[in-house]
């Protein structure tokens, strides 16, 4: 579950690093989950392939949504993605072909290895990204879109790409999720899940790909660790979020933190 959450966190991190906040990623996740489940259940297609197809379909829809969504900014984009997520959920809810409200069951085959394979593949891609000029393009759009364009960036291309790759990760995460839970229903992909994904990124830190990893870890592990608090678990988690926001408003992992970790020891030595 942690691995899946990390992938989901990254799926929001990518659009955010080009200044596009999305709370509709549960929609992309649902697309990935349903399509891969359909493929493994109905056509006996191998799991790996089904997950890839699910991811690609989600990313295709993501690009379609990304092109008009580009005109929206800030809170308006958030509203549009929210509406999209709910739209997808309702489509699956009413589509008997995919089981309607009953959902789909019987998928199996996710192993821990498979999940972390995807996580490491994605991590490697993020590593390449962080060393490439593409990251500069992402940063520039995050900082100042107009100037970025006036320095020769095709911001439309890059923003849609970021949105699409985010959707790809969400779709893959959805496929893995479906085969891990062995049961999906439209109720699994509510706005709340999208908000959680966004929280992974915001709390963990949105300027580094390690941020969502830590955010996902906090959100997956803390509820387990604090199980002893019983009914007050939610209160504890809520309090933790507030504390993190107060003490690390830019997220736990920021770029300055890396600089402190890597450069300070050198100077002393």
């Amino acid at each position: 579950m942690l691995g899946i959450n990390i992938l989901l966190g990254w799926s929001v991190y990518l659009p955010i690093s080009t200044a596009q906040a999305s709370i509709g990623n549960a929609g992309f996740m649902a697309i990935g989950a349903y399509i891969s489940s359909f493929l493994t259940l109905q056509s006996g297609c191998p799991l790996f392939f089904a997950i890839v197809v699910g991811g690609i379909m989600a990313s295709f829809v993501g690009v379609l949504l990304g092109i008009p969504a580009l005109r929206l900014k800030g809170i308006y984009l958030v509203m549009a993605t929210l509406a999209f997520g709910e739209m997808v959920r309702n489509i699956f809810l009413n589509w008997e072909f995919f089981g309607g409200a009953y959902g789909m069951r019987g998928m199996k085959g996710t192993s821990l290895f498979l999940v972390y394979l995807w996580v490491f593949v994605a991590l490697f891609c993020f590593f390449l990204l962080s060393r490439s000029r593409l990251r500069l393009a992402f940063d520039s759009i995050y900082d100042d879109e107009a100037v970025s364009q006036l320095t020769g960036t095709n911001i439309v291309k890059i923003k849609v790409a970021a949105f699409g790759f985010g959707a790809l990760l969400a779709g893959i995460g959805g496929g893995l999720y479906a085969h891990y839970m062995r049961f999906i229903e439209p109720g699994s992909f509510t706005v709340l899940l999208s908000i959680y994904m966004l929280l992974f990124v915001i709390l963990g830190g949105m300027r580094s790909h390690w941020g969502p990893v830590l955010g996902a870890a906090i959100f997956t592990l803390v509820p387990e660790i604090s199980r002893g608090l019983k009914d007050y678990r939610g209160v504890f988690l809520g309090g933790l979020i507030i504390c993190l926001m107060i003490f690390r408003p830019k997220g736990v992992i920021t770029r300055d933190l890396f600089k402190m970790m890597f450069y300070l020891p050198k100077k002393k030595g």
Partner: protein
Amino acid sequence: MPSVKESILELRNITKNFGGVKAIDNLTMDMKSSDILGLIGPNGAGKTTVFNLMTGVLPLTAGSILFGSREISTFSPHRIVQYGVARTYQNIRLFESMTVYEHVKFGQSCRIPSRLRNFLGGDLGTSLKREAEDILHFLGIWELKDMPAHSLPYGQQRRVEIARALATQPSLLLLDEPTAGMNLREKKEILQIMENIHERGIAILVIEHDMRVVMNTCNRIVMLNFGQKIAEGSPAEIYKDVKAREVYLGKEQPC
């Protein structure tokens, strides 16, 4: 110095309306590649609007803009940059999360055809690196290359902005008040930089309020008022022009 006589930039009857306001009214001017052209005029005359029209930020209401011999007024901003128009901004606009060196590197990246190639490095990588180092030395900000750009003092930030613009390898550089808010020594340094850029064969179009700067560096001046061209000529001609003095110079203390 390039001895090319043909014009690098032509604005033909450009007009820009904001609602009912005519920000630019039927402006025609041209520029040679050996020019340092000064664009002057009182506040609100439409100088920055001209820049925004030229770089594709705002669409034209009427008229056409020719760069080289290409009509660029319908292009999107990033393509105009790729054809060789770079600019700086009236209020410094740097990227908060980048170092000085990264600004230059980012400026270069618009010229790279495929972004995938960056992973490979190779000859392209080394030549770009050498060029970036050259630009940083040229502007005297080599020592600051690993500093976050927004933590630098104002004067240095201006240089980073110019460095970023130069990294796109422009043939025309638009400077929007490059010496605003600077003291005399810093102004002189920026003027020196402008002259050095010009020696590299890059045409410069500069918006400036400081008449000393304009009179000393520009070889030609266009004066705007209420979006219309009211005077054009060499600094000496502008200095004598009665209409121009009325609008502008009369209130200032010329050198």
